[in-house]
């Protein structure tokens, strides 16, 4: 079947002559500002650390060793698996997954609601969803911290109404982090799902009803599979930045709930400064993300080929 993938050249060879210079700035930007920093990180992760930050240009596996292996307090015991950082990763994955689930739970109905409004008012609803994002993320996260703290407005209001008698401990919990991540990334869930639902033709739902499917079955067997690409895109767009986030965990999670983002950030602070280790953690995180993306892409291709 002919599609966007089929390779019909757009015209005679002269096109190529124009295309290359036109694309040159793009490639240059991607090369300098995208690939080069990643490459730099990769190189740094294999260098020796210098105290008070910075690196010495000498090859070393020390950073990866520190991440994966425990050689005892003085580094002379036989190595065993080091759990400290793996635990941070596991916690980050759990937190990011929780935030993604929360975003999906709230984002899907929201996207559905917007996509089923008359075309003229959809723009307004989308605009309203994105309004909070005109304010800096740091400020929003601090405000959220203020809102949910022990004697903040949320607890005051709930106690005022009489729903609770003791203030709820939300701040400095896993839930607070997930709430923060949810607040940070909700539009990344809503927008792709909105785009998928908007393209969904309700003629399919009618056909399903015509063939005796009730609403629930129609949602499960017809709607969800058809808008699935939007849902998957939304989940990826929320999960990946959540995994590496550090504002929400730092400001809302307290010391014991810290995540990969905070771990990396710590390594580039003057006082602690272990740049190769920070770079190594970043590389491991990136590898993890690439694996997620790869698995997803494989699954998507298989679905299409089926």
């Amino acid at each position, binding site marked *: 079947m002919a599609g966007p993938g089929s390779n019909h050249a757009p015209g005679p060879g002269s096109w190529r002559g124009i295309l290359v210079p036109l694309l040159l700035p793009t490639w240059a930007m991607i090369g300098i500002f995208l690939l080069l920093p990643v490459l730099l990180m990769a190189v740094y992760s294999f260098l020796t650390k210098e105290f008070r930050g910075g690196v010495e240009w000498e090859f070393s596996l020390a950073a990866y060793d520190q991440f994966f292996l425990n050689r005892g307090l003085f580094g002379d015991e036989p190595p065993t698996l080091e759990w400290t950082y793996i635990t941070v990763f596991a916690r980050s994955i759990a937190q990011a997954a929780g935030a993604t689930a929360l975003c999906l739970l709230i984002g899907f109905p929201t996207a559905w609601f917007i996509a089923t409004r008359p075309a003229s008012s959809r723009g307004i609803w989308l605009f309203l969803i994105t309004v909070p994002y005109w304010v800096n993320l740091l400020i929003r996260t601090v405000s959220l911290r203020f809102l949910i703290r022990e004697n903040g407005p949320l607890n005051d209001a709930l106690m005022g109404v009489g729903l609770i008698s003791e203030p709820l401990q939300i701040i400095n919990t896993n839930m607070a982090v997930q709430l923060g991540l949810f607040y940070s990334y909700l539009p990344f869930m809503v927008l792709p799902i909105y785009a998928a639902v908007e393209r969904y*033709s309700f003629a399919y739902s*009618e*056909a*399903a009803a*015509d*063939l*005796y499917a*009730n609403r629930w079955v129609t949602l499960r067997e017809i709607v969800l599979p*058809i808008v699935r690409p939007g849902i998957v895109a939304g989940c990826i767009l929320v999960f990946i930045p959540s995994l590496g986030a550090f504002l929400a965990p730092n400001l809302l999670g307290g010391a014991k709930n810290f995540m990969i983002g905070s771990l990396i950030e710590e390594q580039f602070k003057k006082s602690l400064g272990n740049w190769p280790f920070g770079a190594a953690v970043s590389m491991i995180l990136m590898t993890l993300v690439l694996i997620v993306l790869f698995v997803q892409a494989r699954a998507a291709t298989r679905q299409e080929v089926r």
Partner: protein
Amino acid sequence: MTDAVEIRNAVKRYGNVTALHGVSLTIRDNEFFTLLGPSGCGKTTLLRMIAGFEDVTEGEIRLFGQNIANLEPNHRPVNTVFQHYALFPHMSVIDNVAFGLKMQKVAQDARRKRAAEMLEMVHLSAFADRLPAQLSGGQQQRVALARALAPSPKVLLLDEPLSALDLKLRQAMRVELKQLQEDTGITFIFVTHDQEEALTMSDRIAVMSAGHVQQIGTAQEIYEAPVNRFVADFIGETNLLPVEVLSVRDGRAEVTLPGGHRLQVAAAGQGIGKHHLSIRPERMALTEAGDLQAVVDRVVYLGTDRQVIARLEDGTPLHLRLQNSDRVAVPAPGKRVGLAVEAGAARLLAD
């Protein structure tokens, strides 16, 4: 026996657009019933109300005697072949066809078997595992037909189900659909704007225009006894002439045609005054001295026929059909001819 579908004074309004103005129809059980009318006359709207996708603004619809106003579409024993197919894009052809059976909790083996039979019927067995996007428009349309038939509904609604097929296939499918309808005894409500399709397949036809039912009857009734100008004009080809009825006696009316010719025709309750007369082109013949005098203007070769356009004395054009045969002489343009109108071929219309 109760009627399959009974529509009483159904009105459909979308805001201030009225799509149907008080439609009343009775469709008998086991009937092949056709809704025929030009684009935008409300055929799809009426089908959607029967299927339950649109509510009825006023009036009521009864299905086998039961008022279905409050019955959700998934509880109506009615299946639809949609005008735009609406095949599920993520399911293979066979899964599409089996979907209704799956919803009816038919066991996997049984529904696969039934779906395969349905695909065989529409000559698509070889395509069972493809996705709808990998089929041509005509193939998709046949899948839609198989999908709607698989659960053996009591009433099948077909919204222009043959429109995307080429002529050969369309003619073959007409015969098969008609056969299928007779074999299964399912009531078919068939929508088309193709009058030939309507005439060849239907037990009865409702001719619609602009949200009104103009006439209900068998193919022959509608073709030979159209009740008004719209029906006469829409079904087949006809000559519509403004005439004046001079006198009516014993069911016969004497009328004057444009140009002053007089003609005796059957009257259907019309009084003296101005009316329209419909004369089918194939029911006039060229003669030496006929009822009317005319001059041949043009002859158009159509294969099986020749279309002759002749003008009456005042210039009013009249179309007639001559069979393409050695026994029928072809007049030259400019020749004066006489036209013989068969008895009963001219029909006075009630407007």
